[in-house]
């Protein structure tokens, strides 16, 4: 065997000597070629554009952008706004006509309150209007600290944080906690600012059917199965449930006790948007937690704006310090925006004073809501959507014409009819293309404590007349 191997080796060497030179050179080149192929990049990832400068110039010359915005037709339904002259309070002048206001979210009538106005004025005389800076850079005023303390006390939470704009509140709060890779379970009826917060967070969004706890649990279970497959990953994925106290789009209430049960069962945190229920629900106006008697500490974060019940500007989040304090460095709308004008904060403080002094106001509001809800029942062609204790109801068409534009036009005629007869109503406005789940067209009916029984009956009568005349 050994000699045989040797023989092969010898023969190979011999063959090498005998081979013609051209053959060796060719093989050498082939070997080099293989090496080259091995070490060169296989493909250029991006196709190299071998365009000459001239060709590039031509392409640039050729390119025509779309217009900056598409033209808006002159009769676009939302191009021309209704014009309000004078204060938008209980009596409101819309398009030159004095009406009773059934459209502004001024639930407690604090917009026109003399005490609130005088506190705002005093604050203006002390601080001026603007703050000229974000909270970090000398934009924190003593009134801001006071308002935060008062809100926390009012809501019975550890801490509160204020934002200078209601819309920016929940939209900033969500991305402060929920990051890429985290999961948010959201009710389909969630309002637009929640949707924007979700988008900014870049998390996975899972929508469950409106107020359908079974659907939510189905999604949570799905996620549980998913988690078991990859427990290491599951340990770092944060999960949140996002719901509204009273939904602005549907005027109904979230089933909070069930949500809390699911929270502990599946270890998901709950964020609640309470712009419609803060200062409305509960014996002391603390919102949906008080309404259901749920311990507020079981809710991880509550956000609400101060633009509805408090009739000022701005928003706040409240909850445990562990949660809320994180926003002071991570809430974009908090860190990077000028702070709330102190006079608006002072107005909100006085609003809280009034709410604390006279919790009977919430009972009055509930009674008025019930009145309006009852009075509107049985309007021909229109159905009342919303809970009997919700202060912002929707009137939807019983039978749609089949096209959203026509439905809106039809509803607008009802609004116009009412405006003529001194009842200020408005259509609920949405961005048709941007909404995740576009609510059906509706007329918004807002209840405030200032509306008298007579005014409510008149309004209901007027709407009924309009419906009979225009929809039948």
């Amino acid at each position: 065997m050994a000699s045989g191997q040797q023989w092969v080796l010898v023969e190979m060497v011999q063959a090498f000597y005998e081979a013609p030179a051209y053959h060796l050179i060719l093989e050498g080149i082939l070997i080099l070629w293989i090496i080259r192929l091995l070490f060169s990049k296989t493909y250029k990832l991006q196709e190299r554009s071998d365009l000459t400068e001239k060709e590039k110039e031509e392409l640039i010359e050729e390119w025509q952008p779309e217009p900056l915005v598409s033209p808006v037709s002159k009769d676009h339904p939302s191009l021309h706004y209704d014009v309000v002259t004078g204060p938008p309070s209980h009596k409101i002048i819309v398009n030159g006509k004095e009406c009773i206001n059934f459209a502004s979210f001024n639930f407690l009538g604090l917009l026109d309150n003399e005490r609130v106005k005088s506190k705002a004025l005093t604050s203006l005389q002390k601080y001026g209007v603007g703050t000229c800076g974000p909270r970090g850079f000398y934009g924190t005023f003593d009134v801001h600290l006071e308002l935060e303390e008062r809100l926390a006390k009012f809501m019975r939470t550890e801490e509160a944080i204020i934002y200078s704009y209601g819309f920016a509140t929940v939209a900033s709060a969500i991305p402060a906690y929920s990051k890429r890779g985290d999961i948010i379970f959201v009710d389909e009826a969630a309002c637009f600012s929640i949707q924007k917060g979700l988008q900014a967070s870049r998390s996975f969004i899972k929508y469950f059917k409106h107020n359908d706890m079974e659907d939510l649990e189905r999604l949570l279970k799905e996620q549980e199965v998913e988690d078991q497959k990859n427990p290491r990953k599951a340990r770092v994925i944060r999960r949140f449930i996002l719901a509204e106290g009273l939904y602005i789009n549907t005027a109904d209430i979230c089933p909070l006790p069930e949500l809390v049960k699911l929270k502990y069962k599946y270890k998901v945190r709950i964020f609640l948007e309470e712009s419609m229920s803060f200062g409305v629900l509960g014996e002391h106006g603390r919102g949906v937690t008080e309404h259901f008697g749920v311990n507020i500490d079981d809710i991880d974060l509550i956000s609400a704006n101060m633009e509805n019940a408090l009739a000022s500007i701005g928003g706040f989040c409240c909850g445990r310090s562990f949660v809320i304090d994180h926003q002071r460095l991570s809430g974009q709308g908090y860190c990077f925006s000028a702070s709330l004008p102190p006079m608006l904060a002072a107005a909100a403080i006085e609003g809280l004073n009034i709410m604390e002094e006279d919790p009977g106001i919430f009972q009055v509001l509930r009674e008025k809501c019930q009145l309006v809800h009852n009075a509107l029942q049985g309007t021909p062609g229109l159905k009342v959507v919303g809970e009997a204790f919700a202060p912002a109801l929707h009137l939807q068409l019983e039978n749609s014409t089949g096209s959203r534009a026509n439905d809106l036009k039809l509803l607008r005629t009802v609004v116009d009819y009412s405006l003529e007869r001194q009842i200020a109503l408005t259509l609920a406005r949405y961005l048709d293309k941007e909404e995740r789940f576009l609510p059906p067209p509706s007329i918004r009916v807002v209840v405030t404590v200032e509306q008298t029984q007579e005014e409510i009956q008149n309004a209901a009568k007027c709407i009924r007349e309009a419906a009979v005349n225009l929809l039948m």
Partner: protein
Amino acid sequence: MTESAGNKKEDCHAANGVKPGRNGMVKNHHHHHQYQKQEKVYHAACNGELYSRPFIESFEETPMLVAVLTYMGYGILTIFGYLRDFMREWKIEKCHIAREREEQKDFVPLYQDFENFYTRNLYMRIRDSWNRPICGVPGAKFDLVERSSKDYNWTFEYTGRVVKNVINLGSYNYLGFAENTGSCATAAGDVTVKFGVGVASTRQEMGNLDRHEELEKLVASFLGVESAMAFAMGFATNSMNIPAIAGKGCLILSDELNHASLVLGARLSGSTIRVFKHNNMQSLEKLLRDAIVHGQPRTHRPWKKILILVEGIYSMEGSIIRLPEVIALKKKYKAYLYLDEAHSIGALGPSGRGVVEYFGLDPKDVDIMMGTFTKSFGASGGYIGGRKDLIDYLRTHSHSAIYATSMSPPVLEQIITSMKCIMGEDGMTIGRSRIQRLAANTVYFRRRLREMGFIIYGNNDSPVVPMMLYMPAKIGAFGREMLKRNIGVVVVGFPATPIIESRARFCISAAHSKEMLDRALDVISEVGDLLQLKYSRHKVLPSLDRPFDETTYEENEE
């Protein structure tokens, strides 16, 4: 300025063998006395002919030793941070951090611990330099609520005393309209009594006051555009309107130092975002060319439209956008331009109309003129101005008009009154003289600081004056030492700036008198010596003091 004629062409991007800095422009100290010798080299590749006025911006390079020491500073802080975290873990050191409640201990942590390492171990040590509560008008001087901390800034106690008459170099009160007396406050007060403060509805529903429309007409005429729309929050003006303008299939070219609101708006729009180097026109042009030549990634379809997002004055750099060049590029490549004038409106230009007027350009060349009312107007909110079709579109499609509460009436009134004052429509010259005062204050303050040997960033005409501190320990020290001497300043560090470029930022106001500025400058110099902040290696000889009242604009208007 004195050197107006010779150095119109001195602003180039890369020249002179100095490598372009992070800011894309030469980081080399354009000092008065150096123009002549450098000018020759500067001629190449300049767009000087586009500028009607000298454009002098300086970003002196970080001295090597300082950079090394700064990194070392962070290194030491990090080591101690880990040490103390270790001690906290073992309960050797008392821990002040708010804890998750017991019931939820087994939930996924709400935020990652390492996210908070910086907050816990670096920010917390010097936290007293931020969020200082004030209890009066944020004017030229303000009153601070005194606070103290017994546990190294974990909690603050209010002593009940007030630190009075602190010179305010922190607020964006450029034209001094943060006032509690005078015509603006009176007008706002009257409206408060009549209207209250809220609106409780959106523009499209029941919150469109006639005063809103009046304000919009006024803004349009102030800006010199066809139409305008006002919004109740400056931040939201960007974040809620960019998505209405751009969308999928559009390309947004954004300056790397753009404000968070622009970045958020761009992200919410769903467009592709590409970032160019700060104020660097070559970087922008390259992105524009590549975008048009290559089209969208993967599909290679042409972009629907390209939107350039820039700011007038950058609030952390003090730089002014090279608007003439941006406009030239935008025209050449048929892109659209979104200009955020949050800091420049009111603060630049002979009549306060912002960066467009500063460069003597036509506002019609900017497609979207955005700005805020927070700063120069002493109010809050923002606007967008432009062609009528743009504004009509926004009226129907802006997120803000449909979903967000409209602007508060007293705030509205403050803006109307202050804007009329700036425009001289109140029949007085107060507005005009404030603008001139601001310009003069700015030039004076910047010159004096430079002469003292500090490294100052930004444009000579920018009322935002960043002064470099570099080292993390000096951030807190500077803030505290200044406050001890009754001067309120803003100090900024990471993450608002690059990690080694911590700085103090002064905002000059028309409300500052020369005495105040001189007092502030003396104190800054004193503290600068104490903390060894006079880093500049390019000593400037004190130039002969020109009369203080001489304004820059008079010199430049031919």
